[in-house]
Protein backbone atom coordinates (compact mmCIF):
# COMPACT_ATOMS: atom_id res chain seq x y z
CA UNK A 1 0.00 0.00 0.00
CA UNK A 2 2.62 2.49 1.12
CA UNK A 3 4.92 1.76 -1.87
CA UNK A 4 1.86 2.05 -4.13
CA UNK A 5 0.88 5.30 -2.33
CA UNK A 6 4.39 6.73 -2.73
CA UNK A 7 4.24 5.94 -6.43
CA UNK A 8 1.16 8.19 -6.85
CA UNK A 9 2.48 11.38 -5.26
CA UNK A 10 3.32 12.87 -8.66
CA UNK A 11 -0.12 12.28 -10.28
CA UNK A 12 -1.81 15.50 -9.14
CA UNK A 13 1.07 17.89 -9.97
CA UNK A 14 1.65 15.95 -13.19
CA UNK A 15 -1.97 16.31 -14.28
CA UNK A 16 -1.95 20.00 -13.37
CA UNK A 17 1.21 20.67 -15.37
CA UNK A 18 -0.14 18.67 -18.33
CA UNK A 19 -3.41 20.64 -18.25
CA UNK A 20 -1.61 23.98 -18.06
CA UNK A 21 0.68 22.92 -20.91
CA UNK A 22 -2.31 21.91 -23.03
CA UNK A 23 -4.11 25.20 -22.30
CA UNK A 24 -0.92 27.08 -23.14
CA UNK A 25 -0.59 25.26 -26.48
CA UNK A 26 -4.25 25.90 -27.33
CA UNK A 27 -3.92 29.57 -26.40
CA UNK A 28 -0.71 29.88 -28.42
CA UNK A 29 -2.40 28.25 -31.43
CA UNK A 30 -5.37 30.62 -31.06
CA UNK A 31 -3.05 33.63 -30.92
CA UNK A 32 -1.20 32.36 -34.02
CA UNK A 33 -4.52 31.94 -35.86
CA UNK A 34 -5.67 35.41 -34.82
CA UNK A 35 -2.34 36.84 -36.03
CA UNK A 36 -2.78 35.12 -39.42
CA UNK A 37 -6.34 36.51 -39.69
CA UNK A 38 -5.12 39.99 -38.73
CA UNK A 39 -2.36 39.87 -41.39
CA UNK A 40 -4.88 38.70 -44.00
CA UNK A 41 -7.27 41.53 -43.15
CA UNK A 42 -4.42 44.04 -43.48
CA UNK A 43 -3.69 42.68 -46.94
CA UNK A 44 -7.39 42.99 -47.77
CA UNK A 45 -7.69 39.20 -48.07
CA UNK A 46 -11.07 37.96 -46.89
CA UNK A 47 -11.56 34.36 -45.77
CA UNK A 48 -14.59 32.68 -47.28
CA UNK A 49 -17.25 30.84 -45.33
CA UNK A 50 -15.75 27.44 -44.47
CA UNK A 51 -17.52 25.14 -41.94
CA UNK A 52 -14.97 22.92 -40.16
CA UNK A 53 -14.83 20.04 -37.66
CA UNK A 54 -14.60 22.45 -34.72
CA UNK A 55 -17.87 24.19 -35.63
CA UNK A 56 -19.52 20.76 -36.02
CA UNK A 57 -18.10 19.79 -32.61
CA UNK A 58 -19.54 22.95 -31.03
CA UNK A 59 -23.01 21.69 -31.97
CA UNK A 60 -22.50 18.73 -29.63
CA UNK A 61 -21.44 20.80 -26.60
CA UNK A 62 -23.93 21.85 -23.87
CA UNK A 63 -23.18 25.53 -24.58
CA UNK A 64 -26.07 26.85 -22.52
CA UNK A 65 -24.98 24.88 -19.44
CA UNK A 66 -21.38 26.06 -19.97
CA UNK A 67 -22.66 29.64 -20.27
CA UNK A 68 -24.75 29.36 -17.13
CA UNK A 69 -21.84 27.85 -15.18
CA UNK A 70 -19.70 30.78 -16.35
CA UNK A 71 -22.48 33.04 -15.04
CA UNK A 72 -22.39 31.36 -11.62
CA UNK A 73 -18.59 31.74 -11.52
CA UNK A 74 -18.62 35.43 -12.49
CA UNK A 75 -21.30 36.25 -9.94
CA UNK A 76 -19.14 35.05 -7.02
CA UNK A 77 -18.26 37.99 -4.76
CA UNK A 78 -14.55 38.90 -4.94
CA UNK A 79 -12.82 39.97 -1.70
CA UNK A 80 -12.39 43.77 -1.69
CA UNK A 81 -8.60 43.47 -1.36
CA UNK A 82 -8.38 41.43 -4.61
CA UNK A 83 -10.81 43.45 -6.77
CA UNK A 84 -8.44 45.96 -8.31
CA UNK A 85 -5.93 43.18 -9.14
CA UNK A 86 -8.59 40.92 -10.69
CA UNK A 87 -10.16 43.73 -12.75
CA UNK A 88 -6.70 45.04 -13.64
CA UNK A 89 -5.76 41.58 -14.98
CA UNK A 90 -9.03 41.45 -16.94
CA UNK A 91 -8.34 44.92 -18.36
CA UNK A 92 -4.82 43.91 -19.47
CA UNK A 93 -6.04 40.66 -21.03
CA UNK A 94 -8.97 42.25 -22.88
CA UNK A 95 -7.72 45.84 -23.37
CA UNK A 96 -10.43 47.47 -21.23
CA UNK A 97 -10.09 51.15 -20.32
CA UNK A 98 -10.35 51.26 -16.51
CA UNK A 99 -10.08 55.07 -16.42
CA UNK A 100 -13.62 55.40 -17.84
CA UNK A 101 -15.31 53.17 -15.21
CA UNK A 102 -17.90 55.24 -13.33
CA UNK A 103 -16.99 53.76 -9.91
CA UNK A 104 -13.74 52.93 -8.10
CA UNK A 105 -12.81 49.27 -8.86
CA UNK A 106 -13.41 48.25 -5.23
CA UNK A 107 -17.09 49.09 -5.69
CA UNK A 108 -17.64 46.23 -8.18
CA UNK A 109 -18.41 43.19 -5.99
CA UNK A 110 -18.33 40.62 -8.80
CA UNK A 111 -16.85 40.27 -12.28
CA UNK A 112 -20.40 40.56 -13.68
CA UNK A 113 -20.89 43.91 -11.93
CA UNK A 114 -17.58 45.10 -13.38
CA UNK A 115 -18.43 43.75 -16.86
CA UNK A 116 -21.69 45.70 -17.06
CA UNK A 117 -20.12 48.86 -15.57
CA UNK A 118 -21.39 52.28 -16.56
CA UNK A 119 -18.93 54.96 -17.67
CA UNK A 120 -18.05 58.33 -16.21
CA UNK A 121 -20.37 61.16 -17.30
CA UNK A 122 -19.33 62.50 -20.71
CA UNK A 123 -17.28 59.43 -21.70
CA UNK A 124 -19.50 58.84 -24.76
CA UNK A 125 -20.66 62.18 -26.24
CA UNK A 126 -23.66 61.70 -28.58
CA UNK A 127 -23.25 63.24 -32.06
CA UNK A 128 -25.80 66.11 -31.96
CA UNK A 129 -26.44 66.26 -35.75
CA UNK A 130 -30.19 65.51 -36.15
CA UNK A 131 -29.46 63.98 -39.57
CA UNK A 132 -27.09 61.35 -38.28
CA UNK A 133 -27.46 57.88 -36.86
CA UNK A 134 -25.03 57.04 -34.07
CA UNK A 135 -23.39 53.77 -33.06
CA UNK A 136 -25.47 52.01 -30.39
CA UNK A 137 -22.38 50.34 -28.87
CA UNK A 138 -18.61 50.31 -28.60
CA UNK A 139 -17.16 47.73 -30.94
CA UNK A 140 -15.73 46.84 -34.35
CA UNK A 141 -17.73 47.39 -37.55
CA UNK A 142 -17.89 43.96 -39.21
CA UNK A 143 -20.18 44.76 -42.17
CA UNK A 144 -22.60 47.40 -43.31
CA UNK A 145 -24.49 48.35 -46.45
CA UNK A 146 -27.84 48.45 -48.23
CA UNK A 147 -30.13 45.40 -48.19
CA UNK A 148 -31.26 44.71 -51.75
CA UNK A 149 -32.99 41.87 -53.55
CA UNK A 150 -36.25 40.09 -52.82
CA UNK A 151 -34.68 37.80 -50.22
CA UNK A 152 -33.42 40.76 -48.14
CA UNK A 153 -30.17 38.94 -47.36
CA UNK A 154 -27.30 40.21 -45.17
CA UNK A 155 -23.80 38.84 -45.85
CA UNK A 156 -22.38 37.04 -42.75
CA UNK A 157 -19.03 36.56 -44.45
CA UNK A 158 -18.02 36.23 -48.09
CA UNK A 159 -19.76 33.15 -49.39
CA UNK A 160 -22.59 33.04 -46.86
CA UNK A 161 -25.63 35.31 -46.24
CA UNK A 162 -28.61 35.11 -43.91
CA UNK A 163 -32.12 36.51 -44.24
CA UNK A 164 -33.06 39.69 -42.36
CA UNK A 165 -36.53 38.17 -41.95
CA UNK A 166 -35.01 35.17 -40.12
CA UNK A 167 -32.95 37.50 -37.95
CA UNK A 168 -35.86 39.77 -36.93
CA UNK A 169 -38.60 37.12 -36.88
CA UNK A 170 -41.55 36.22 -39.07
CA UNK A 171 -43.85 38.66 -37.25
CA UNK A 172 -41.53 41.61 -37.97
CA UNK A 173 -43.10 44.84 -39.20
CA UNK A 174 -40.62 44.67 -42.02
CA UNK A 175 -42.71 42.68 -44.52
CA UNK A 176 -45.78 44.80 -43.67
CA UNK A 177 -43.94 48.00 -44.47
CA UNK A 178 -42.65 46.51 -47.70
CA UNK A 179 -46.09 45.08 -48.65
CA UNK A 180 -47.81 48.30 -47.52
CA UNK A 181 -45.72 50.34 -49.90
CA UNK A 182 -46.18 47.97 -52.76
CA UNK A 183 -49.95 47.87 -52.52
CA UNK A 184 -51.19 51.13 -51.21
CA UNK A 185 -49.56 54.24 -52.65
CA UNK A 186 -51.88 56.62 -50.86
CA UNK A 187 -51.65 55.33 -47.32
CA UNK A 188 -50.82 58.21 -45.05
CA UNK A 189 -49.28 57.37 -41.68
CA UNK A 190 -51.97 57.50 -39.04
CA UNK A 191 -50.75 57.34 -35.48
CA UNK A 192 -48.62 54.26 -35.38
CA UNK A 193 -51.26 51.84 -34.21
CA UNK A 194 -53.08 49.04 -35.88
CA UNK A 195 -52.34 47.28 -39.14
CA UNK A 196 -52.76 50.32 -41.45
CA UNK A 197 -50.34 52.39 -39.41
CA UNK A 198 -47.76 49.64 -39.75
CA UNK A 199 -47.71 50.58 -43.39
CA UNK A 200 -45.26 53.33 -43.84
CA UNK A 201 -45.74 55.73 -46.72
CA UNK A 202 -41.98 55.56 -47.12
CA UNK A 203 -41.43 52.83 -49.55
CA UNK A 204 -38.72 50.24 -49.49
CA UNK A 205 -38.61 47.92 -52.41
CA UNK A 206 -36.72 44.69 -52.30
CA UNK A 207 -37.30 44.34 -55.98
CA UNK A 208 -34.19 45.05 -57.89
CA UNK A 209 -33.35 46.87 -60.12
CA UNK A 210 -35.18 49.62 -58.38
CA UNK A 211 -37.82 51.24 -60.53
CA UNK A 212 -37.76 55.01 -60.17
CA UNK A 213 -41.13 56.70 -60.48
CA UNK A 214 -40.29 60.34 -61.36
CA UNK A 215 -43.89 61.37 -60.59
CA UNK A 216 -43.85 59.87 -57.11
CA UNK A 217 -44.28 62.59 -54.49
CA UNK A 218 -42.90 60.34 -51.79
CA UNK A 219 -39.19 60.06 -51.04
CA UNK A 220 -37.93 56.56 -51.79
CA UNK A 221 -36.52 54.54 -48.94
CA UNK A 222 -33.86 51.90 -48.81
CA UNK A 223 -33.14 49.37 -46.10
CA UNK A 224 -29.67 49.43 -44.56
CA UNK A 225 -27.80 47.36 -41.98
CA UNK A 226 -24.70 47.56 -39.82
CA UNK A 227 -23.12 44.67 -37.84
CA UNK A 228 -20.93 45.61 -34.84
CA UNK A 229 -18.90 43.05 -32.83
CA UNK A 230 -18.18 43.73 -29.14
CA UNK A 231 -14.96 42.25 -27.73
CA UNK A 232 -15.01 40.91 -24.15
CA UNK A 233 -13.15 44.01 -22.91
CA UNK A 234 -15.50 46.52 -24.55
CA UNK A 235 -18.10 48.64 -22.77
CA UNK A 236 -21.23 46.48 -23.06
CA UNK A 237 -24.20 48.81 -22.68
CA UNK A 238 -26.45 49.50 -25.71
CA UNK A 239 -27.83 52.95 -26.56
CA UNK A 240 -30.51 54.26 -28.93
CA UNK A 241 -28.95 55.03 -32.36
CA UNK A 242 -31.52 57.83 -32.93
CA UNK A 243 -34.75 59.21 -31.46
CA UNK A 244 -36.67 55.94 -31.58
CA UNK A 245 -40.15 54.60 -30.70
CA UNK A 246 -39.73 50.93 -29.79
CA UNK A 247 -43.02 49.19 -30.52
CA UNK A 248 -42.13 45.53 -30.06
CA UNK A 249 -39.61 43.22 -28.43
CA UNK A 250 -38.93 39.64 -29.60
CA UNK A 251 -36.77 37.21 -27.56
CA UNK A 252 -35.36 34.16 -29.38
CA UNK A 253 -33.89 31.68 -26.87
CA UNK A 254 -31.82 29.97 -29.60
CA UNK A 255 -28.30 28.66 -28.97
CA UNK A 256 -25.16 30.23 -27.56
CA UNK A 257 -22.37 29.71 -30.06
CA UNK A 258 -19.31 31.95 -29.71
CA UNK A 259 -19.59 34.94 -32.09
CA UNK A 260 -15.86 35.68 -32.57
CA UNK A 261 -14.30 36.16 -36.01
CA UNK A 262 -13.64 32.44 -36.44
CA UNK A 263 -17.27 31.56 -35.60
CA UNK A 264 -18.61 33.95 -38.25
CA UNK A 265 -16.44 32.13 -40.81
CA UNK A 266 -17.45 28.60 -39.81
CA UNK A 267 -20.98 28.54 -38.30
CA UNK A 268 -23.92 28.84 -40.71
CA UNK A 269 -26.66 31.39 -39.79
CA UNK A 270 -24.74 32.29 -36.61
CA UNK A 271 -26.82 35.39 -35.70
CA UNK A 272 -30.08 33.64 -36.63
CA UNK A 273 -29.26 30.55 -34.52
CA UNK A 274 -28.01 32.37 -31.41
CA UNK A 275 -30.05 33.69 -28.49
CA UNK A 276 -30.99 37.27 -29.20
CA UNK A 277 -33.37 40.09 -28.31
CA UNK A 278 -34.83 42.08 -31.22
CA UNK A 279 -36.21 45.59 -30.58
CA UNK A 280 -38.28 47.00 -33.42
CA UNK A 281 -39.95 50.34 -34.04
CA UNK A 282 -39.84 53.61 -35.93
CA UNK A 283 -37.41 56.51 -36.25
CA UNK A 284 -37.69 59.73 -38.25
CA UNK A 285 -36.92 57.94 -41.52
CA UNK A 286 -39.17 54.91 -40.93
CA UNK A 287 -38.42 51.38 -39.77
CA UNK A 288 -35.60 50.67 -37.27
CA UNK A 289 -34.71 47.39 -35.55
CA UNK A 290 -31.79 46.35 -33.38
CA UNK A 291 -30.84 42.71 -32.71
CA UNK A 292 -28.66 42.16 -29.61
CA UNK A 293 -27.07 38.73 -30.18
CA UNK A 294 -25.63 36.80 -27.22
CA UNK A 295 -22.70 34.37 -27.14
CA UNK A 296 -21.39 31.52 -24.92
CA UNK A 297 -19.49 33.79 -22.54
CA UNK A 298 -21.97 36.69 -22.78
CA UNK A 299 -25.33 34.96 -22.81
CA UNK A 300 -27.48 37.49 -20.97
CA UNK A 301 -29.23 40.53 -22.45
CA UNK A 302 -30.90 42.93 -19.99
CA UNK A 303 -33.36 45.60 -21.18
CA UNK A 304 -33.48 49.01 -19.46
CA UNK A 305 -36.99 49.39 -20.93
CA UNK A 306 -38.15 45.98 -19.62
CA UNK A 307 -36.03 45.00 -16.56
CA UNK A 308 -38.15 41.93 -15.87
CA UNK A 309 -37.08 40.15 -19.10
CA UNK A 310 -34.87 37.11 -18.33
CA UNK A 311 -32.60 35.55 -20.98
CA UNK A 312 -30.18 32.58 -21.00
CA UNK A 313 -32.66 30.48 -19.05
CA UNK A 314 -32.10 26.75 -18.53
CA UNK A 315 -33.61 25.08 -21.57
CA UNK A 316 -36.81 23.17 -20.85
CA UNK A 317 -36.08 20.00 -22.82
CA UNK A 318 -39.63 19.43 -24.05
CA UNK A 319 -40.19 23.10 -24.90
CA UNK A 320 -37.84 23.34 -27.84
CA UNK A 321 -40.03 25.89 -29.60
CA UNK A 322 -38.14 28.06 -32.03
CA UNK A 323 -40.92 30.67 -31.92
CA UNK A 324 -39.78 33.90 -30.26
CA UNK A 325 -41.53 35.27 -27.19
CA UNK A 326 -42.95 38.64 -28.29
CA UNK A 327 -44.25 41.72 -26.47
CA UNK A 328 -45.86 44.86 -27.94
CA UNK A 329 -45.08 47.94 -25.83
CA UNK A 330 -47.85 50.27 -24.59
CA UNK A 331 -49.23 52.73 -25.37
CA UNK A 332 -50.28 50.98 -28.54
CA UNK A 333 -48.66 52.51 -31.57
CA UNK A 334 -46.31 54.71 -29.56
CA UNK A 335 -44.42 52.14 -27.50
CA UNK A 336 -41.30 53.13 -25.54
CA UNK A 337 -39.98 56.56 -26.60
CA UNK A 338 -36.20 56.98 -26.45
CA UNK A 339 -34.00 59.95 -27.30
CA UNK A 340 -30.81 59.36 -29.32
CA UNK A 341 -28.14 58.02 -26.94
CA UNK A 342 -30.56 56.84 -24.24
CA UNK A 343 -29.50 53.52 -22.72
CA UNK A 344 -31.73 50.70 -23.96
CA UNK A 345 -30.02 47.41 -23.00
CA UNK A 346 -26.88 45.74 -21.64
CA UNK A 347 -25.08 42.48 -22.32
CA UNK A 348 -23.84 40.45 -19.35
CA UNK A 349 -21.79 37.33 -18.70
CA UNK A 350 -23.42 33.97 -18.10
Amino acid at each position, binding site marked *: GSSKGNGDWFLLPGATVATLLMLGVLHGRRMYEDMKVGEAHEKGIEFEFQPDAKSAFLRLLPLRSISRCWGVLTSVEIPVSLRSRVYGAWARAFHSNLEEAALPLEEYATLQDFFVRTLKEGSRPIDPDPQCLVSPVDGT*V*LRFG*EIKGAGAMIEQVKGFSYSVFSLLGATSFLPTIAKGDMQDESSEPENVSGEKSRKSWWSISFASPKVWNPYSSR*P*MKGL*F*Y*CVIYLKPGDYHRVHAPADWNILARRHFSGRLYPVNERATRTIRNLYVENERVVLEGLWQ*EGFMALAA*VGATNIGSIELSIEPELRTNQAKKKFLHSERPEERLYEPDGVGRTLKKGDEVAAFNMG
Partner: protein
Amino acid sequence: STVVLVFQAPLSRSPENGESSSDFKFLVQRGDRVRAGEALGR
Protein backbone atom coordinates in the same frame (compact mmCIF):
# COMPACT_ATOMS: atom_id res chain seq x y z
CA SER B 1 -21.57 39.64 -28.44
CA THR B 2 -22.86 41.33 -31.58
CA VAL B 3 -25.40 44.02 -32.47
CA VAL B 4 -27.13 44.04 -35.87
CA LEU B 5 -28.87 47.33 -36.74
CA VAL B 6 -31.47 47.32 -39.56
CA PHE B 7 -33.09 50.62 -40.58
CA GLN B 8 -34.83 52.53 -43.35
CA ALA B 9 -33.15 55.62 -44.75
CA PRO B 10 -33.62 57.94 -47.74
CA LEU B 11 -32.66 56.89 -51.24
CA SER B 12 -32.37 59.35 -54.11
CA ARG B 13 -32.41 58.37 -57.73
CA SER B 14 -30.07 59.38 -60.52
CA PRO B 15 -32.82 59.89 -63.19
CA GLU B 16 -30.78 58.73 -66.19
CA ASN B 17 -30.51 55.10 -65.15
CA GLY B 18 -32.83 54.72 -62.14
CA GLU B 19 -30.06 53.05 -60.24
CA SER B 20 -30.18 53.97 -56.58
CA SER B 21 -27.43 56.26 -55.44
CA SER B 22 -28.55 56.42 -51.83
CA ASP B 23 -28.88 59.67 -49.91
CA PHE B 24 -27.88 57.90 -46.74
CA LYS B 25 -24.10 57.68 -46.40
CA PHE B 26 -22.19 55.46 -43.99
CA LEU B 27 -19.30 57.30 -42.35
CA VAL B 28 -17.45 54.13 -41.26
CA GLN B 29 -15.34 51.45 -42.92
CA ARG B 30 -15.23 47.71 -42.20
CA GLY B 31 -12.87 46.97 -39.34
CA ASP B 32 -13.29 50.47 -37.82
CA ARG B 33 -13.45 50.70 -34.05
CA VAL B 34 -16.55 52.72 -33.07
CA ARG B 35 -17.80 54.04 -29.73
CA ALA B 36 -21.39 54.45 -28.60
CA GLY B 37 -22.67 57.87 -29.67
CA GLU B 38 -20.30 58.35 -32.61
CA ALA B 39 -21.90 59.01 -36.03
CA LEU B 40 -22.36 55.78 -38.04
CA GLY B 41 -23.97 57.46 -41.04
CA ARG B 42 -25.74 60.61 -42.16
